[in-house]
């Protein structure tokens, strides 16, 4: 069986794979990083979004072999080692940006990709960027609010103006 090695959350990672092993399977099953979720497994829901060489991708629609030598970042690498949440994660907590939480890893990784390219997005830009991330609790308003808050913008006018306590 072929080997693959890559850098995951700043650490060297390697393992045996098959040609058909998906990146998400390698992350979850070989590396035990189960924070990246598989929602639909048909490239639609975005629960499996991770960053490969800094770009958001759906890890259910990329083979592990294609990530050989790449730098991969997952939800596990977002908080500080002592557990302190990063700005986006903290904003999701503050603004109740999750209900069941299943889509959250993908939402946070997509949000982080967006804010890296566009540090002060408009509400419309946030909603457009999240086209490939589905929340089946339909909690979109608070997700959008959390991302705008994480970008340091006033969110009092978003979706009815309910502010965080």
């Amino acid at each position, binding site marked *: 069986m072929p080997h693959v090695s890559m850098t995951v959350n700043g650490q060297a990672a390697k393992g045996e794979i098959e040609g*058909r092993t998906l990146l998400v399977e390698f992350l979850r099953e070989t590396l035990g990083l189960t924070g990246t979720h598989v929602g639909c497994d*048909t490239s639609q829901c975005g629960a499996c979004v991770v960053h490969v060489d800094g770009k958001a991708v*759906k890890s259910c629609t*990329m*083979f592990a072999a294609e990530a050989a030598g790449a730098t991969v970042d997952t939800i596990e690498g977002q908080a500080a080692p002592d557990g302190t949440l990063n700005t986006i994660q903290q904003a999701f907590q503050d603004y109740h940006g999750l209900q069941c939480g299943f889509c959250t890893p993908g939402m946070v990784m*997509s949000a982080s990709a967006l804010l890296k390219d566009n540090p002060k997005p408009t509400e419309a830009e946030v909603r457009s960027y999240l086209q490939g991330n589905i929340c089946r609790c339909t909690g979109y308003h608070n997700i959008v609010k959390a991302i705008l808050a994480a970008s340091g913008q006033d969110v009092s006018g978003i979706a009815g103006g309910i502010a965080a306590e």
Partner: protein
Amino acid sequence: MYAFEIERPETVEEAIKALSRDEAQPLGGGQTLIPTLKQRLAMPSVLVSLTGIAAMRGICTDDAGLLCIGGGTTHGEVAAGADKFAGLAMMAAKIGDPAVRNRGTMGGSLANNDPSACWPAAALGAGATIVTDKREIAADDFFQGMFDTARDEGEIITEAKFPVPEKSAYAKFEQPASRFALVAAFVAKYSGGVRVAITGASESGVFRWTEAEEALGRDFGPGALDGLHVEPDGMIGDLHGTPEYRAHLVGVMTRRAVEAAR
């Protein structure tokens, strides 16, 4: 998925050699092929990944002023980097979603020729030249019907060359679940004439709406399209829209593209 091997060549020559193996198939960004493999609708023994070939990635302008895009260039890279060709950047920015655009490639989309895909409309609407490892093929000859192209088995789309128009736009009526085009129009105005390509509508795949091209060539404005329509005969009918509905959308989306052209 059935089992297969993956090869990751770094040059076109290595890729061609790998593709000469039994039941080998090229893999672009995989945004169509991987879901197809998951459904066991394809059974290659070897997948030859083309995304590691550096020479097939990127956007540049050649000596003749053509915009040259490498076959392995992603939709996202075109959306961000084709600023001298507004319609092309507009088209690439509307494919799928951001994560899909970070993986899906121009070459993969052109080779697949999905009847509802965006890239075939751009290539045909711009009169692009498709460059493979063996030859150059005019877009007018390349697309040969639903999921069918002039590409031979094992032939790799290394590049496409786009003449840059004076004005262009892409207007897409999205099928909201898949984000493929229910119907979309690519309009490009050149000094020598106007080209209009329609995707998502016809059972024969992407096509040029020549009547609209002639009318817009005389007078490039939405009014030129008054009274023009395509027949529902041969249009796609499915749960998302009847042939009559799609025929109607052809006119609507072409008009919107003309209005948006810059």
